[in-house]
């Protein structure tokens, strides 16, 4: 294939990708509009399960956004040069995921047209109010960070801005965990372990997403990730996956130790139907054990293994978040300890939840928005890692 042929064909594939992502994003916005016009009755949510599938998507993307910046932090803050080459892509992923996650979160509000009210009225005992500043500040800091990375005369500042971005995102992810940690009344939440758990989850999921996108970028251009770098990044992912597994185990073991929490833990881990299945099969087996095998097995661990491990980790993340967010709401509140309660408002009952199409489309629309930002960003600005670009140019020149 000549260079001209490659360019033409590649260009068509790129526009096709944009069209596909654009259609999914459009479907997401249409679903949000439908939800806004008709109310949340068109979703599967109800008065007991108020945060549904869109929140699973949104919280995954926000947590992964913070973790995706990790690669850049390893470069700037911990000074590893190969990671430095990947820092711009890492920053782009952070911004894209954050934008996608926030889009889903804001469009799922009961009154999304009141965004101005949310931006002008603040109650600072609420983590959500802090999040308005943390998230918008994240956009600003990463934008400045990208500037220091990509403009040569600003490179000297990238270390300091990188450190600021690293600290900011630790605070941001702590805030995301605190959303749940501060809920005293629910047996699934109200634990000081949650912010650190979310930080470790961000490490794992952010890196998994980064590796998946990196594989895609290299595959698109016919290059390969340098094997030594691949080995180190994949081992890091394995370490983070093990870290999340550890913290989740500690969370559930501690919970199960308290007599008053035993019934809830039995529900989530054994008897709750979809929740134990998603937890054990979706998160533990497919989302943690299989990726660990793919990463550490001596005969595996190549490019395909790493891509598979990353995608499975992301799937496991969705499973874990579904169990955490929705399973936690399905279990009834303990208002009358020592009594079995029943009422017309769901007291004492486990609430059923079945997500409906508008929720799924909204979530996928957010993912599409994130991927659109990544695709367009990679196209117009030099986000792709440098060694990849040189290899691609060499490969194209060699084909003529």
């Amino acid at each position, binding site marked *: 294939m000549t260079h001209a042929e490659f360019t033409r064909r590649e260009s068509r594939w790129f526009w096709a990708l944009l069209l596909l992502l654009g259609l999914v994003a459009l479907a997401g916005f249409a679903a949000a509009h439908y939800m806004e016009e008709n109310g949340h*009755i068109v979703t599967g949510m109800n008065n007991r399960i108020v945060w549904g599938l869109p929140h699973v998507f949104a919280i995954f993307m926000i947590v992964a956004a913070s973790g995706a910046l990790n690669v850049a932090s390893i470069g700037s803050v911990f000074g590893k040069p190969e990671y430095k080459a990947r820092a711009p892509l890492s920053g782009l992923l952070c911004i894209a995921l954050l934008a996608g996650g926030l889009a889903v979160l804001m469009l799922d509000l*009961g009154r999304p047209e009141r965004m101005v009210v949310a931006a002008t009225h603040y109650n600072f005992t609420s983590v959500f109010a802090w999040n308005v500043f943390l998230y918008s500040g994240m956009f600003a800091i990463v934008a400045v960070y990208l500037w220091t990375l990509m403009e040569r005369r600003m490179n000297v500042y990238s270390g300091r801005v990188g450190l600021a971005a690293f600290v900011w995102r630790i605070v941001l992810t702590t805030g995301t965990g605190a959303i749940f940690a501060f809920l005293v009344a629910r047996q699934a939440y109200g634990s000081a372990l949650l912010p650190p758990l979310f930080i470790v989850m961000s490490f794992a999921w952010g890196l998994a997403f980064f590796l998946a996108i990196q594989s895609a970028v290299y595959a698109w251009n016919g290059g390969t990730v340098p094997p030594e770098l691949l080995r180190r990044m994949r081992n890091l992912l394995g370490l983070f996956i093990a870290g999340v597994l550890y913290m989740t185990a500690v969370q559930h073991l501690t919970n199960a130790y308290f007599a008053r929490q035993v019934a809830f833990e039995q529900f989530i881990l054994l008897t709750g139907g979809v929740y134990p299945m998603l937890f054990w099969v979706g998160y533990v087996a497919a989302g943690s054990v299989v990726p660990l095998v793919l990463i550490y097995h001596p005969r595996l661990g190549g490019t395909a293994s790493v891509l598979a491990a990353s995608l499975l980790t992301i799937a496991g993340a969705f499973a874990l978040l579904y169990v955490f967010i929705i399973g936690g709401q399905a279990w009834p509140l303990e208002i009358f300890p020592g009594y079995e309660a029943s009422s017309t408002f769901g007291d004492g009952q486990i609430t059923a939840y079945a997500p409906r199409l508008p929720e799924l489309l909204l979530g996928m629309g957010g993912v599409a928005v994130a991927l659109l930002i990544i695709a367009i960003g990679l196209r117009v600005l030099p986000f792709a890692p440098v060694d990849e670009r040189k290899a691609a140019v060499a490969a194209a020149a060699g084909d003529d």
Partner: protein
Amino acid sequence: MSGIDHARRQILAWGAAMAGVTLAPGVTLFQLAQGRPPAEPASKAVRWGMLVDANRCASDCDACVTACDKENGLSGARTPTSAQWIRKVELKDLRGGPAKSAPVMCQHCAEPPCVDVCPTGASFKRADGIVLVDRHTCIGCRYCVMACPYQARSFVHEPVTDQKPEVPRGKGCVESCTLCVHRIDRDRIPACVEACAATGHKAILFGNLNDPASEISQRIAQFSTTALRPDLKLNPGVRYQGL
């Protein structure tokens, strides 16, 4: 007439004036506690509360719920997406005691978790202790629904028509028992209390917790009452007897 003792008359007049001046603040205070003029804001000299006697509450009666639905323009439907500001909870004692029944509504806590978590400050506590949602500022994020230990809040899932003029409510906002604030501000009692009294059960008592002479304060001083989830130390304005 010449026999009139002007001095005596003057003393009587001054005496009446003094008595009036002395008594007037008391009369005004009484009025403050019972009903304030429309232009006067609510004050924290008053703390509205309710006392529910589970011993008097009948299992097969839901007069309070029906009255609340009618007063506030709720649909009365009992689907998972329908708003319910008060509900009857049937209780079975797991240790083998007698079955009980009690209404549960917003507990109007002194330390409300829903107020802490609301990002815009729409969920707020009024000076006289009533916890309300300012629907002008509510963005419908449902964080307060997650935070409430009593599952007191409902989210409006569909467009509302035919609202009661005194109780504005609409799609996309969160709402809960207002302690019939539109009635309290006009010297009446909540609809559920009135309905329960009308059935003869008289299981719900409403009054000013800050007034030691009120019937509710006297009953709380006399009988053993509890809050729901007392371990959370939220100091609710609704107390329960017989649980």
